[in-house]
């Protein structure tokens, strides 16, 4: 299943946050959203999993506008991993993952053997099978994120939408999580802060800046020194990764780009 985003405008708290973005997340591919803080990545993703309504434009699931689907129906196709932590309500790991079955159930229906099987498999996929009885709120940040990913997998969706899934994870868990996304081969729409991670796992990248789409394409086409300077305001070289051959961005952490260009003005953020 592919996700078509057409000319999307989204306002949030009275301010236009996304304006006129159009992009395609192709079937089975990992589509990355990158951009500085406040560029509209999260807002765009929230519209795809229907937390926010667009003011104009559409999100199409294989041609069907998501607003024409019931909330539960849409959630059977699209699972989300938002940046929320949840409160302390004595929920166990298993109970949190079992929430993924919510859109597949109506009214009083309990979890049957299939549901329990799907939950167990999702927990195994993220390596949390031994922790099913633990209290969710007592987990470390990395463990929580894996459990929340398992919840999204338990939804058995065609499309995964992930908002900064590697935040708060140590490097090993970042690598593991992104590897898991790659083997899933589901249509995946993911926002990432780490540009090198984006360059190596994403099939396509879309760059947002002030709510507008400024570049799209293969990571190697998109991640150029000129774009990095313009959008992120940094000086960087793009080289080949010595191990994988993926684009590797080597940042210059010492000086802002304007200073290097001789303008002498400090970088405004």
């Amino acid at each position, binding site marked *: 299943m592919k996700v078509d985003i057409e000319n999307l405008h989204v306002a949030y708290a009275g301010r236009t946050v996304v304006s006129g973005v159009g992009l395609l997340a192709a079937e089975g591919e990992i589509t990355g959203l990158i951009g500085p803080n406040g560029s509209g990545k999260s807002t765009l993703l929230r519209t795809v999993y229907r937390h926010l309504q667009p003011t104009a434009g559409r999100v199409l699931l294989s041609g069907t506008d998501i607003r024409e689907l019931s909330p539960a129906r849409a959630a059977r196709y*699209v699972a*989300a991993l938002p940046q*929320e932590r*949840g*409160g302390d309500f004595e*929920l166990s790991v298993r109970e949190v993952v079992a929430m993924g079955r919510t859109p597949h159930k109506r009214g009083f229906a309990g979890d049957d053997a299939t549901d329990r099987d799907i939950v167990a498999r999702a927990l195994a*996929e*993220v390596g949390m099978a*031994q922790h099913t009885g633990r209290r969710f709120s007592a987990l470390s940040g990395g463990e929580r994120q894996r459990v929340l990913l398992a919840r999204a997998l338990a939804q058995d969706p065609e499309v995964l939408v992930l908002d900064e899934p590697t935040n708060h994870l140590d490097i090993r868990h970042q690598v593991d999580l992104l590897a898991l996304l790659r083997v899933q081969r589901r249509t995946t729409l993911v926002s990432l802060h780490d540009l090198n991670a984006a360059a190596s796992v994403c099939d396509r990248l879309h760059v947002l800046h002030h709510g507008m789409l400024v570049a799209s394409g293969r990571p190697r086409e998109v991640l150029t020194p000129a774009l990095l300077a313009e959008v992120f305001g940094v000086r960087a070289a793009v080289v080949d990764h010595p191990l994988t051959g993926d684009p590797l961005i080597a940042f210059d952490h010492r000086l802002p780009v304007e200073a290097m260009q001789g303008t002498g003005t400090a970088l405004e953020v």
Partner: protein
Amino acid sequence: MISNLWSRKDVGPKSAESRSVSAAPVAAALGVALLLALTAAVSWGSTFIPHGDVWGVVGRRLSGENARLGTYDLVVWQLRVPRAVLAALVGAGLGLVGTAVQALVRNPLADPYLLGISSGASLGAVAAIVLGVGAGGALGLGLSSAAFVGALATFAVVWAVARRGGNFGPLRLVLAGVAIGQFLSGFTSYLVLQSGDVQQTHSVLFWLMGSLSGASWPLLAAPAVAVPVALLWLQARARGLNALLMGDETAAGLGVDVVRLRRELFTLTSLLTGILVAVSGAIAFVALMVPHVCRMVVGGDHRRLLPVSALLGALLLVVVDIVCRTAMDAQELPVGVVTSLIGAPALLYLLDRRSGDGS
């Protein structure tokens, strides 16, 4: 192959094990305890009535025999049974409304009493009496409606005040509720005292502390319908309530219509609080404590939490009412006195435990 990637063991504290046990035996045990407590509640009082006679009267009444036979019929059937059943219904209702409010505001420290909703309901009911609306023959329906309006309006104001400035911390909500609740309670006291014709059952004490002393068969009608309906309604949405605990975005991603569910929960909790307050006044702490205790035993999943909270709330209030009726020789204590004596220390313990979590 991929599963091996995460085979490294993250060593976590063993004490973090969730203590949830299967709900069925807990519910069964609570059900049996409730029956025993109800029997005791009818037996014990100014005169002791043997358990066998209690069930004899109830059996004759339920089987439709001409029942005016037994010595105890009047005391058992007209006084003590309605009172015990009222205690059970109100307790169950408080357990449910506490669970629902806590999920609605995503705050385990919330309940209709702390949030001022009960005080709003009391004021609504008292205003109706003073204006002469609820006193009529509609058997408390006018009173319940007025209490519902008071509860709904108060909840809306507390919600709006807590949200001002954007951040919606759990303590801010509770503080707003306590402040507004106190204000409304003061207003209620004034209205009752200045109205002059203070009936015993509708005294200041009744509305502010809660009391079951007004129990009668007709009074049971509204809660007897509302509490089971609320349980079924909430039970059908238990998965949605679970999702709400994780946050609005998560719930939306799980296919829950968050705006609609919130609006419905808002109405349901106000309605249920209004009905409960109309028959028993504002009873403190039961709705706060019961879901907490139940979460510790059966875990946070609402599919188990809701029925167990209803049962424990019923059991708790039946037992508390026995204490209220028998603790002093000459008169009885308002039920809210005893729930406050138990509940306030429990709240302090919870606050302490939560700050100890560091989260």
